[in-house]
């Protein structure tokens, strides 16, 4: 009895851990790791949801010339410091300044570039 309850307990603990391991990125979170880890910083996570509450799509995707494809724009810190792309707002004037490195560079190690949280990322395979 005791041995069995012990085994069951172990099974419960394992069963309880499995769903905890499954993680769900917020829909449309963009992860960018084209250069970050190679340059020694954590990958970037861009939350679409936070930005679309405040700005329409066209502000970034037309006015700021950010392309609709994860990792295809060729964003570098030099360009941001020059006021391009994210740097147009993240300058301490419209939004917080880019010296808050770890607010963007907050991805876990080994993160691949892409758009997360959608149908393509949670299924057993791509369509």
């Amino acid at each position, binding site marked *: *009895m*005791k041995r069995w*309850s012990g085994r*069951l*307990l172990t099974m*419960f603990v394992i*069963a*309880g851990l499995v*769903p905890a391991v*499954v*993680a*769900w*990125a*917020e*829909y*449309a*979170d963009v*992860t960018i790791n084209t250069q970050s880890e190679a340059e020694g910083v*954590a990958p970037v*996570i861009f*939350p*679409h*949801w*936070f930005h*679309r*509450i*405040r*700005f*329409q*799509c*066209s*502000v970034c*995707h*037309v*006015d*700021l010339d950010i392309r*609709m494809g994860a990792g295809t724009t060729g964003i570098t810190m030099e360009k941001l410091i020059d006021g391009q792309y994210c740097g*147009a*707002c993240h300058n301490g004037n*419209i939004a917080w300044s880019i010296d*808050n*490195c*770890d*607010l*963007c*560079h*907050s*991805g*876990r*190690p080994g*993160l691949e570039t892409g*758009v*997360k949280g*959608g*149908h*393509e990322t*949670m*299924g*057993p395979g791509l*369509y």
Partner: protein
Amino acid sequence: MTGINMRSLAVLMIAGGLALLAMLLLASLAEAQSDPNRFNRLMKPAAERNAPPPEDGIHDADSPGTHLLQTPREAFDALPDSKSGNYVQWNAAMDEGLIEPRNSLTMVSTPPIVLDLNIVREVKGSMPDVVYPHKQHTQWLDCSNCHPAIFIPQKGANQISMASILLGEKCGVCHGKVAFPVSECRRCHSRPKEQTAAN
């Protein structure tokens, strides 16, 4: 001496059994509460939607910056719910004035140029025809976001299939990634086909 041992063993067994039952009950309750369709791995359990950054699987929970970020749940609390994507009806939120996304970087927001023009696409299959509303799209986007790179602005010039959309082309450039996913069939396939004489 053996009597006491036997009795204590019996008590231990009963207690162990009861504890096990309680655990089973709690586990099944928790399971039922999280989502009745828990077996479906593709379906996001309601309790796990809009997870805070440290728990979303892509942020590094050990990074101090992760814990300073706003949680989606907090931001979405006042916004109308939907069944997929961010679980927010973004257009309704904008129409109701709950969010006021700017259309320029300047602090003075000018009204966007909204085009109220519906395009009906008659589909080959048995699904209802697609009604594409320019209005909802131009509330967020500029003409140049779609024209002419994604859609040629000419009637009949664009071949669109669900396969290409699922591969991230045409509507799939946004729908399935940022805008509501293609699982919301009837939001696009919304105009019933006209009944023919044969029917």
